[in-house]
């Protein structure tokens, strides 16, 4: 831009600058609106789901306690109790954690600390890739392989069971746990290992007493992410759960977790029935919040 020599030119430049400032202002507002959209959608989601789900209890006079602790779910008879589903969801999640977390964590340690570079270079990306496989396919595998296997080896009438759900969810969370935990373990500085070796600690001792504690927060993230995938899983679980509405008393019982209840009945539900499915969603949502909270507590406690 040249130095203005006449009045008219000066005015033109002033106008151009004004336009530029306007543009700056407008665009920064647009950026802000885009960023606020995520807040708005979150509010909308919570608002809609809670409005729908709370309606039967607040307006129609259903008891929330009966809803949570009731054993019977018979929408046609106006009976809405989700206790069996809550128990199924809790058992399925805890079971999957018990199997999936140690195996996933040990695999991550193996890949980061024990395996030769060549082997780790092949296996790690392959496992990472498996984290991206659609979860439905885990369900198809579960129904075709795990369910008949349980049926035959345990002599069950029906292989679709709590145990099948636990196994499918444990397998499904493996890639996530392995990938995230491996990254965390690899991020532990080399000096930690050297220091530990210099004190005469064996490789295995170093891994479990020095490296794993040092990578703890990353490992916790891995577990939370794996858990998130397991607890919200729906379609794969429908295929292997059996969907019976009973409180499970053994691993071989057929179950219906919270997520499957929503997906199975949402297609034809209306009125109070539909609202009760939203209420099921609220319970699932609270369940996830509580679990994340507990896990965060556990990890911060371990830190002290």
């Amino acid at each position, binding site marked *: 831009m040249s130095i203005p020599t006449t009045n008219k030119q000066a005015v033109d430049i002033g106008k151009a600058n004004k336009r530029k400032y306007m*543009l700056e202002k407008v665009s*920064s507002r*647009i950026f802000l609106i885009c960023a606020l959209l*995520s807040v708005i959608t979150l509010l909308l*989601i919570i608002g*809609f789901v809670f409005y729908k789900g709370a309606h039967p209890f607040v307006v129609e006079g259903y008891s929330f306690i009966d809803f949570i602790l009731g054993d019977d779910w018979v929408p046609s008879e106006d009976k809405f109790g989700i206790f069996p589903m809550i128990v199924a969801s809790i058992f399925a999640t805890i079971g999957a954690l018990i199997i999936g977390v140690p195996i996933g964590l040990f*695999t991550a340690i193996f890949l980061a600390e024990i395996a030769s570079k060549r082997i780790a270079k092949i296996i790690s990306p392959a496992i990472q890739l498996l984290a991206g496989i659609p979860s439905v396919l885990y369900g198809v595998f579960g129904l075709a392989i795990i369910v008949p296997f349980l049926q035959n080896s345990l002599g069950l009438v029906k292989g679709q069971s709590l145990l099948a759900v636990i196994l499918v969810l444990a397998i499904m969370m493996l890639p996530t746990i392995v990938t995230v935990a491996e990254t965390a373990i690899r991020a532990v500085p080399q000096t930690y290992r050297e220091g530990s070796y210099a004190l005469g600690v064996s490789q295995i001792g170093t891994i479990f007493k020095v490296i794993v504690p040092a990578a703890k927060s990353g490992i916790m993230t891995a577990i939370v992410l794996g858990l998130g995938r397991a607890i919200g899983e*729906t379609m794969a679980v429908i295929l292997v759960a059996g969907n019976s509405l009973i409180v499970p008393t053994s691993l071989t019982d057929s179950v219906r977790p919270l997520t499957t209840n929503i997906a199975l009945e949402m297609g034809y539900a209306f009125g109070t029935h539909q609202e009760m499915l939203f209420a099921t969603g609220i319970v699932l949502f609270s369940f996830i919040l509580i679990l994340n909270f507990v896990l965060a507590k556990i990890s911060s406690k371990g830190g002290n």
Partner: protein
Amino acid sequence: MRYLKDNLLRGLLWLSAFLSVAVLVMIVGFIFYKGFNLISFDFIFGDYSPTGGGGIWPMIVTTIYTVLISLVIATPIGILAAVYLQEYAKQGRLVRLIRFATESLTGIPSIIYGLFGAVFFVTTLKLGMSILAASLTLTIIVLPVIIRTTEEALKTVPRSYREGSLALGTTKLQTLYKVILPSSMPGILSGIILSVGRIVGESAAIFLTAGTVAAMPESILSSARTLTVHSYLVTQESGDIELAAAVGIVLIVIILAINLIATFISKKFNKATNK
């Protein structure tokens, strides 16, 4: 005693790794072994036939529609939101609120998104069970992914680039689209590609918002089924594991291709910045 314990733990490490790899190899092997016989040109490009023997082209088209529509909406919003958070916002309560919302959105299970989509897009906005309703729901699901990866990409642009550009007398906006966005493009791109994977793999939310009609969608307002929903339905309704596995092969190949492209882009990106 110590050696015994060490060896025991070492053995457990090997065993776990072996188990993980074996199970995962088994799943992929199973899908390919079961479904391979069905894969043919006609299967992929043929029209669906309810009596069996048809192709899955309508489901592929539906999947492509959902990917395109969700990305067309989510990409600009996600990038601009990330730009705001990284380049414009003053750190404070508002930014914390936005970050909290984005993180919370990541943690919501997809069945809840499905519920929301079913009541908001399908019923309240009267879109009906349709590709559009499903795509809008998916937009919300991938938005946090795009925001986060774009933010990471923006962080890698050196401060000196911004200073150099501003020192030349450019405005903030000019610096943004002439300097910052081009140099963070590869990172943004791999975020978008990862979102494609998320959309292709999603099932529960789509099941509740797009419905299950097995036919070529006439418009984006038609109900239709994606590949994942098709795979689920043929397993659940007819127990046709072979067909479900064949659809699975197509899905795995898509995911594989997506990952290869993302890796390729980020490798290229790393080379360019390390120079």
